[in-house]
């Protein structure tokens, strides 16, 4: 986005939700395309001082411990700077208690030297129930107290908190840019926030809530265009799609089942007929959003993947190379879709239970993928086999995204290998079980990731 680097520094006593907030911000920013990463000082402290730190380690009078904690903090800060400048990160989140003026001054100094903007995010909580809940949910099951009796652990943690409380200095420096979230956002104090990115983060924070809720996703039922394999359009549901719509209410009831607010559900659809028809039998409040419409396929609207491939072959390969940013001619890219969906995400954060009925393209951006499952490009080897099952020719390398469409992949392979798509058989051997499976020819919408393809995996290509 811009060349300005931003560091969000969390401030607050333990069990105030700092790490939760940090992770939420990180996920939101990553989703909008801004590279973001959390640097948790606790993890560094566990590396330098081990995981058996009991409450006396956090006593402000324990000089040796203070030295170790300072070391952990500096290491985390150094790593943060490296990531920002050498790996071209945009927003780094420094997750630690940072409860003293001294520590905050130190951080400000380092960031100013490196020309990094700093925003402090302080989480303050006066409600003892919320704190006890946080401790029970997160701290006791954490690595510091692994294998300990929960009551002993809770007591130890409370003593640890008291050590922090004795040295706690809330942010009172009015020349710093900060946001104070008090009592889970019921009081928010904003100071010296400048610019688009910072105000966006603050706005996101104001919309967070910690009440439990569920988000349900459903693709629209099969449409007439799906039957013919055409892209885009505004088709009605096919008969099978109507059956799906009719069975939806019972599925939803089962999914929400025993939860306390099972009746508190809102249904979001797009303005396309197929999603509205899918929601027709649901008796909940419904909202139709233009922003949830299918990815605009531009000139390719109404064509099959094969036709697209025939008419615009370079585009077809380009799409394969970077599916996230590739923009259909006269249409949109997934990245544009993300921008389009952003106001919805904000509204989503505010809602309680919600069911979203959308098209396939929305499954990928709307569900922010955790770090480990990010879209990885996988290179497989296609090995052509002749009638006797012996290798014919050298294996061909092929790059695919795990989220690619099976039909699309088959069409590509068929073209490359000069085999008719109807006769093409792709055989995948599972690395661990040795089981062989043929990539389904008729279930064309299944994702390639279903087959758990790994880098370097060999796929046999057979000409039936």
């Amino acid at each position: 986005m811009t060349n300005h680097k931003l560091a969000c520094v969390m401030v607050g006593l333990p069990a105030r939700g700092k790490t939760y907030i940090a992770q939420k911000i990180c996920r939101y920013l990553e989703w909008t395309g801004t590279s973001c990463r959390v640097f948790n000082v606790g993890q560094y402290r566990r590396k330098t001082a081990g995981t058996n730190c009991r409450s006396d380690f956090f006593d402000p009078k324990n000089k040796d411990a203070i030295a170790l904690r300072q070391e952990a903090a500096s290491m985390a800060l150094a790593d943060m700077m490296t990531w920002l400048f050498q790996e071209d990160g945009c927003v780094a989140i420094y997750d630690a208690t940072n409860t003293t003026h001294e520590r905050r001054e130190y951080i400000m100094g380092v960031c100013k030297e490196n020309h990094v903007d700093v925003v402090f995010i302080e989480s303050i909580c006066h409600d003892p129930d919320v704190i006890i809940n946080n401790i029970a949910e997160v701290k006791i099951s954490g690595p510091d107290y692994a294998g300990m009796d929960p009551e002993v652990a809770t007591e130890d943690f409370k003593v640890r908190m008291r050590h922090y409380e004795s040295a706690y200095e809330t942010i009172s420096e009015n020349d710093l840019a900060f946001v104070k979230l008090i009592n889970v956002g019921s009081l928010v104090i904003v100071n010296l926030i400048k610019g688009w990115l910072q105000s966006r983060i603050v706005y996101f924070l104001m919309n967070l809530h910690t009440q439990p809720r569920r988000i349900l996703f459903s693709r629209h039922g099969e449409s007439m265009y799906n039957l013919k394999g055409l892209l885009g359009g505004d088709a009605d549901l096919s008969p099978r799609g109507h059956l799906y719509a009719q069975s939806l209410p019972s599925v939803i009831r089962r999914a929400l089942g025993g939860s306390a607010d099972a009746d508190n559900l809102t249904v979001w659809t797009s303005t396309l007929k197929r999603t509205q028809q899918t929601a027709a039998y649901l008796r909940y409040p419904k909202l139709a959003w233009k922003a949830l419409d299918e990815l605009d396929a531009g000139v390719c609207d109404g064509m099959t993947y094969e036709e697209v491939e025939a008419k615009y072959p370079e585009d077809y390969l380009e799409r394969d190379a970077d599916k996230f940013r590739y923009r259909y001619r006269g249409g949109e890219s997934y990245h544009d879709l993300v921008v389009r969906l952003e106001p919805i995400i904000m509204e989503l954060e505010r809602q309680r239970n919600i069911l979203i009925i959308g098209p396939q393209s929305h499954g990928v951006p709307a569900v922010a993928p955790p770090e480990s499952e990010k879209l990885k490009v996988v290179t497989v080897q296609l090995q052509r086999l002749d009638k006797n099952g012996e290798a014919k020719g050298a294996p061909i390398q092929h790059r695919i995204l795990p989220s690619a469409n099976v039909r699309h992949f088959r069409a590509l392979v068929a073209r490359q290998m000069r085999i008719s798509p109807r006769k093409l058989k792709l055989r995948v051997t599972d690395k661990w079980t040795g089981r062989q499976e043929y990539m389904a020819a008729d279930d064309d919408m299944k994702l390639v990731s279903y087959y758990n393809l790994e880098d370097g995996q060999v796929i046999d290509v057979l000409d039936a």
Partner: protein
Amino acid sequence: MTIAALTYRHVDDATLLPLDHESTPNWWFGCPYSKSSPPPTPGRMFHAGTICIVPVGLPARGKTYMSKKLCRYLRWLGVKTEVYNIGTYRRKLFGANLPHSFFDPGDREALEKRRIASQAAFEDMLSFFDKGGQVGIYDSTLTIMEEKRRELLDRLTPLNVQVIFVETICEIPHVIEANVREVKLNMPDYEGWDEDKALDDFMRRINIHAPFYTPINDSSLSFVQVMNMGIESNIGEHIVCNNVKGYLQTRMVLFLMNLHISPRTIYLLKNGESVPGACFKDDAPLNADGVALARKLPSFIAALRARTNRHPASPKIFTSTRSRSYQTAQFFPPECVTSKAPLVQMNPGAIEGMSDDAIRAKYPEEYARHVKDPFNHRYPRSESYHDLALRMEHVILELEGEKEDVLVIAHETVLQCLYAYLMDLGEKDIPRLQIPSNTLIELVPQAYGTRETRYLIE
């Protein structure tokens, strides 16, 4: 299992559809509000209910400025908003030339007169809500008094109106004086007065109110406190939000964080001409005329800015992601130019390239509906102006926060929306705005309006 005929209503963006037990099978059920609440009308957004925003603060703290800006922003989002300025009502009922003793909240008689004016405004606001309005901004100086705030709350809460107070606090004398000079002395109250005498009178008016001012400190209320609102500072320097819940309310805070009154200029320019006969989806490049325009642009703008004393010679440029848009900016230094996807023209959908008569022939019903409501209506597979405005909201907020001069190069539909936003025009005017080609429109936002100049590019 038979599949019953499903009837579809034309659904506006995020409109809550009403509970309708009486009519024939209508599959759009569900309304969390009681049956007695009126059916939702277009303009009610995000199921947010009715909201009354009450600016609080001494005179010359920017209440009216903020009210107007908020009103403009919310209207542009498609929310029916109206500002009720008590001063205007007071002027209508009791005239403009009043001694400053009239404004003494301790003077019973004068207070009674002001109460009559407030009552008139309040009743107008209530009838606005009844007719489907969503946000009313109640701009009165008397809300500095705790009892007036309580009174407002007591009267509005039983009517299911959410009340949010926005308090503007400023204690820096030179900022207040600058505010007064820029804004207050041009008011009808001071027509014909000598400037220094008017300033003195107004400062006395402020001081008269000061003893009656109780800052908001009731934490059960929903309020926003904005500090240091002045001409030179960033408006959102220090903001306290208490109990601010709701989509529109948090949106309002986001808007306030991006507001500033630093002077800057915004230029609007239509895309250069592209190859004719191309359809919307083909990304057609500029034709010869378009390229000629692009060539002339940098020098024309540099000369204009030199004449009008602005630096630097080339402003920041926002274009859309279509070729004809960023190609019009191709002769500027590349670091000034940013392509923004939300600035792409409105999708014409099924009616692309059709003349009015052709549309009337092919889609007679749609055409009739379009004529009734051109801003909200969507042709098949196309976008409405409302969708376009929502899509561009990102850019609008960025523009608000931008302290440097900006040139926006985009298609006519996009410029219509931007122009309407900056000139505070109603949504009905947007579809009819004419943006001529080869003309640079220069807009200078000022305290209570925008100054416009047009330059023809030879």
